């Protein structure tokens, strides 16, 4: 582990227990994961294998039942809700399968949303938003509402929203899961470019081998075990 200085994400022996009635379901069963800075990692695995759970743990959306999660040297599994929220705002960019844009806001306002949590002035926020929309190629669509945009465009707005704060890591949960092939490719091109040109660390949960192929490394999660090859 000569590169340990550059490890950005360190997940150690984590488990997440869900309660279904009287039954306890262990989702991750002590998973380990290390992600170096600048990596574009694809995480694959069957439904229910805990891919999204792992992603949520790294993004601080959820806490592990056991084990530790360290991002950028910080033990986030121990942070209070309040601290965690602030940490998320600074370090995490989230991209969702169903975009999760607020329908009442224009593309521009949606992208601006995370910036409201910073101390930037209105003019500075505008500048950042314009830059982010420029990166995803949607400058001319800034005044459109989500329902006026295609799925691919909405996801690009979602990505713009994720990168506008210049986060440490970009977490994408099935970013192409709801898109056709052309739009998928656009999104994947965008993510690759962000990784290669801007050095963004990206973790992407996906079902789609075609999408996973664009990543620099692919891991398979099944029954709580991470492997470099699928089981079968």
């Amino acid at each position, binding site marked *: 582990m000569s590169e340990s200085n550059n490890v950005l994400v360190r997940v150690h022996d984590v488990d997440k227990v869900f309660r279904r009635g009287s039954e306890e379901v262990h989702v991750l069963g002590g998973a380990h994961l290390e992600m170096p800075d600048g990596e574009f990692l694809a995480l694959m695995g069957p439904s229910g294998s805990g891919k999204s759970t792992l992603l949520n743990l790294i993004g601080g959306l*959820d806490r592990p039942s056991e084990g530790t999660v360290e991002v950028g040297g910080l033990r986030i599994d121990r942070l209070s809700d309040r601290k965690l929220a602030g940490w998320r705002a600074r370090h995490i960019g989230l991209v969702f399968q169903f975009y999760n844009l607020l329908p009442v806001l224009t593309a521009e306002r949606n992208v601006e949303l995370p910036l409201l949590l910073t101390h930037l002035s209105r003019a500075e926020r505008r500048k950042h938003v314009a830059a982010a929309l420029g990166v995803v190629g949607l400058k001319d669509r800034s005044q459109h509402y989500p329902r006026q945009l295609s799925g691919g465009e909405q996801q690009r707005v979602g990505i713009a929203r994720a990168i506008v704060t210049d986060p440490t890591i970009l977490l994408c949960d099935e970013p192409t899961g709801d898109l056709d092939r052309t739009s998928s490719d656009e999104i994947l091109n965008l993510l690759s470019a962000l990784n290669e040109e801007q050095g963004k660390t990206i973790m992407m949960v996906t079902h789609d081998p075609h999408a996973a192929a664009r990543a620099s490394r692919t891991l398979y999660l099944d029954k709580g075990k991470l492997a470099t090859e699928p089981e079968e």
Partner: protein
Amino acid sequence: MKYLHLLWRNLTRKKLRTVLTVLAILVAFLLFGYLSAVRQAFNMGIEVAGADRLIVRHKVSIIQFLPISYERRMEQIEGVADAVHQTWFGGVYQEPKNFFAQMPVEPVEFLEMYPEYVLEPPEYEAFLNTRTGAITGVTTAERFGWKVGDRIPIEATIWSKKDGTRTWEFDLVGIYEGAEKGTDTTGFFFRYDYFDEARAWGEGNVGWYTVRIDDPDRAAEIAEAIDREFANSPAETKAEPEGAFMQGFAKQIGDVAAIVTAIVTMAFFTMLLVTGNTMAQSVRERIGELGVLKALGFTHRGVLGLVLAESCLIAVLGGALGLALAAWLVSFGDPTPTASLPIFYFPARDVVIGVVLIFLLGLAAGFFPALRALRLQTADALRR
């Protein structure tokens, strides 16, 4: 301030629903405001009763008379500062439905006892100098379009005159204002000396006394002393603080007032419940979006603040309009054609209660669904 846009966009997400919700709250608080005035009317101005005044009446009932000589005797009781008398005249102006209270009084003493009846100095002078003079409150003057200088004929139902006629003519020399909102400005007062001399019977008898005492804390004790003074006489008395007397009077309207207010209060809270539920529903529908905000790094407090700001804004918008509308409607005064509610206004205390209720509505309607959204793990909320 930077959240204003988001707030506004959420409010206008479903314009029709927002408008209807605001209207529903408006109506609820209109009802609340109007009810306050009605309740106030039923209470007959207990709030403005003088703490330093007692009412002394015949023990058996207020319709029995007391001798005029009691005034002097009461004023000699320790603790009594002054005593003035009034008598129910019960006359009719034009027709019986034009009801208002008329009382013969001693002008100087009476107005000293009731400083809440505010008269311009020239009108006061005129009252002292005109034997057939009378003063009335603005409410009654406006009701019949009377002006100072008018001659008011009143048909007596109880007090016929010595000459056998029943029409008493009074010269309106003054119109008084109320010093406070709750002051009854429907009364009509004329001079006792004129009354006593002209009435065919009952000379030297008056209806009841108002007694001012030096120390309000000793009210009970002084009332007892007064009653003791006249015990075992042909006209025994019952003295009680003015507030208690009015309360007793208000209680006589009794069950009806209580039932009407109870029904309407229930209705008001039902309306709040239904509206609050509609507001809460619109928050519940957005639990997923609240999850997104949390995922983006909004704190619990931040999300809660946004939701509460929105629900309070709706509540305040509707509530303020409702209270304002109620105040406007109430300002037209007594709604009954028979003028049965002499005291009819929207008391400041109830405005405050109304404002508190508005915020409670806004907070409750936003708080509970928002709390539910926040209790959910962010990850679960997103799945909604």
